[in-house]
């Protein structure tokens, strides 16, 4: 048996969405007279869940964040909440989710972690890409939309939240990367005194200047250009129910889709990839 679980939690400092933004001196600034560190709701749940597993099974929690000074504030929050260590990956530039995940993966590769817990989506960008790239780089199982976890030894059983309130139960062996939902764990309250005490704690720093790992290139970023839709009024001869349906759907009877693919996971994945390539969403790397 291992002496305990080595858990890494990835956090990102975000702006408090409840505080309005203001433009001053050519910069967007938050009008917070007393700024405090914030991480997204999903990441708070991730940290809380990690701390609870640590309390039950022993081990240690390592908090990781990428960025400039603001990342340190997020890490101190993690230390105040009970993380054993905090690693600040210092970057002068702003990385996107793919770049951040690669940078974190390079650090975690040396830490021999059993479990990485991330928020399913950060509090701001919410691309949801970070955990997937991290799992790929670490060659670990990826479990997304996690709303419940049972952990026994190195066996992991996870409840995933699907659409329309459906739930899916899956299991795997560690190591794994979890992308969790905010419902996973209600974060504990951390007193101001504990936060103040965490100011004395050490945050380890790792300087990173490399670009993102090869294999992921951002080719272009195009803003969405939605075309105006022609919507027909409901036919007066239709029944009331049909007219309602017409109004609600905008007259579209059935959504066009790439079709429904069934089969083993790798076959399905191939089909999805082919579809994406056909439609021009993805290039190369087949």
């Amino acid at each position: 048996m291992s002496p305990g679980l080595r858990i890494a939690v990835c956090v990102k400092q975000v702006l408090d969405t409840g505080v309005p933004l203001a433009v001053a001196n050519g910069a967007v600034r938050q009008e917070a007279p007393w700024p405090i560190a914030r991480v997204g709701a999903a990441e708070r749940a991730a940290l809380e869940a990690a701390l609870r597993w640590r309390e039950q099974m022993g081990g240690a929690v390592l908090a990781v964040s990428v960025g400039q000074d603001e990342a340190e504030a997020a890490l101190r929050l993690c230390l105040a909440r009970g993380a054993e260590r905090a690693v600040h990956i210092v970057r002068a530039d702003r990385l996107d989710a793919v770049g951040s995940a690669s940078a974190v993966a390079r650090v975690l590769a040396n830490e021999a972690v059993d479990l990485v817990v991330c928020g399913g989506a950060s509090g701001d960008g919410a691309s949801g890409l970070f955990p997937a790239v991290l799992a790929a780089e670490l060659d670990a199982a990826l479990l997304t939309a996690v709303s419940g976890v049972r952990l026994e030894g190195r066996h992991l059983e996870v409840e995933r939240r699907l659409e329309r309130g459906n739930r899916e139960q899956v299991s795997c062996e560690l190591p794994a990367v979890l992308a969790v939902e905010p419902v996973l764990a209600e974060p504990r309250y951390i007193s101001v005194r504990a936060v103040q005490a965490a100011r004395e704690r050490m945050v380890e720093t790792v300087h990173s200047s490399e670009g993102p790992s090869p294999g992921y290139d951002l080719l272009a970023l195009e803003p969405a250009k939605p075309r105006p839709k022609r919507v027909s009024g409901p036919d007066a001869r239709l029944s009331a129910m049909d007219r309602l349906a017409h109004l609600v759907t905008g007259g579209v009877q059935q959504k066009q889709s790439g079709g429904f693919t069934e089969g083993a996971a790798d076959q399905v994945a191939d089909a999805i990839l082919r579809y994406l390539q056909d439609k021009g969403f993805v290039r190369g790397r087949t």
Partner: protein
Amino acid sequence: MIGRQILGNIAGWLQVVMYVTTLGSAALAIAVLWRHVAHWRRGRAEGPLLPWQERWPDFVRRALAQRDIGDPDRLAGWMHRMIFWGFVVLFIATTLTAIDHDFGLPILHGPFYLVFAFLSDLFGLFFVIGLGLALYRRYGLRLPQLGYRRPGDGLILALLLLVGLSGFWVEGARIAQTGWPGYERVSFVGWTTALVLSAVVPSGSWSAVHQELWSLHVVFIVGLFAALPFTRLVHMVTTPANILLRARRLGALRPVAAGKPVAELEAFSWKQLLELEACTSCGRCSSVCPATASGKPLSPMLVIQHLREQLQGERHDPQLIANDGPGVIDPNELWSCTTCGACEEICPVAINHIDRIVDLRRVLAEDGALQQPTTRALESMLGKGNPWDHAPSERARWAERLGIRVLREGEPCETIYWVGCAGAFDEQARKITEAVAKLCKRAGVEFGILGPREGCTGDFARRLGEEGLFQTLAERNAAAIRSHQPKRLLTHCPHCLNTFVREYGLEGIEVVHHAAFLEQLVAAGKLPLTRGGVQRVTFHDPCYLGRYNGIYEAPRLALGAIPEVELKEMGRTRQRSFCCGGGGGQVLLNVPIGERIPNLRFAEAEALGVDVIATACPFCKIMLAPVPAERGVEGKIAVKDVAELLAEACV
């Protein structure tokens, strides 16, 4: 020769036995009491005691004159006074007898003896009647507040009564045995007892009967001495000591000790531990507690008594707070307290319940054992300066419409109107703010507000146990206030008021509550109140205005100045006001157990048949205002602040 025969009829060996047993049991009692002192010494140091000019008059009033004890239960008051004064006079009488006999000073002779004998009998009679009342209250009426029983409760009442009764038997037998001297008629109870006894005692055997009754009397006294330190009779020592060593009053909370707070008896001060043993479990605190009355799991008396049991080794819980696993106090007991102070106000023995409850809340808060929505409120207080997640920049939104001056940092201003979070953001409370601002403008008072630089004063944070948050908020706010060098800080929130006055230390700045301020403006004729209309009004005393800061008259005077207003008082008013249920962070906690406290208070006002419940606290209004709609009497009874009523009357 008029005088008292002392031990004249008692055999020498019996006298020796008497001296040995009484002195021995008294010595034993003192030795056991010393162990109680060791209990208190487990506690930390206490802050400075109140000045002696306050403590000694309080001691005389409470302990000697027994002034507060009959409030509100007059029967209980007279019961205790009769026992206490009876005991004291009999004790003095015994001491005089001992001085006369053992030191050979002949004092019990002549006219002095006649006065002595009469008074001894009179107070002895009081003593016996008082004990009869005590037994009647405990075992006849079976009062609910006496529901907490301790071993020996019946025994000590019986022993005290038997000591009193047997004293009269001995006296009667002595009168008969000494040949019925006529002057002994002043010992009217003893004389009567002698007459009754003579119906059964043959005239030749008085000497033997006297000696037997005397021995019985001694047995009871020895039993009483022995029982004293082991039963609630120990309050004869601990309670006067507690009153005399008073260190704190309702208002400011105890400062935190260094380091992480812990839930151990040793974390309390010696005074807090002494209080545990000074409590007589009379139940007055719980009978006025809004949490108890609404069926929440808190009884202030049981908090004190359960802690005492742990201190004295009557219970052996592994921890003080039953947070995870068994403990002395359930967290829900702690979270049910509204810190209204009714318990401390009524406690006849000057126990401070609230800072003890908050001390234990501090442990829970540091342990992170706070639940939603409180957690979110506290985090919002830190980041946004208000408990409801509103953006700080929205704080002065109400003022824009009214053209109120929002101060820039450092801009000097004589009068600052401190709006508070409720006053700025809550729909009900904002009506108070607007009324106060309008009235001030009408009266020509120049004032400014801090707007976005104002933050929650931290009263709720502190009373929820989040001391670090309170300190942070207090530093910020004090610096923001001082930067304007104000002379006066006006607030309509008694919680802000109390925190400013007692916990911020804003020296040189007068903090004034709007009820008092507006009343002064009315009295000075600056606010012409001409419009009537509202008729029957009752005033609900906010706890932090009345009990905490002693402001009772100003709001009533202000209301009385409104034409056509008829002020009616609720049964529980002024010092005895019943909390709205919002204090101590309850607005943010909302313990979902039992009846809602504002409903109880509203029902009281409703029974009075009033049109308006007036109050002077935004949180009282927030708690009480939704009740009429819930009870289906919307439009019949309104809940309004004094300022709103004044603004309506001021054309």
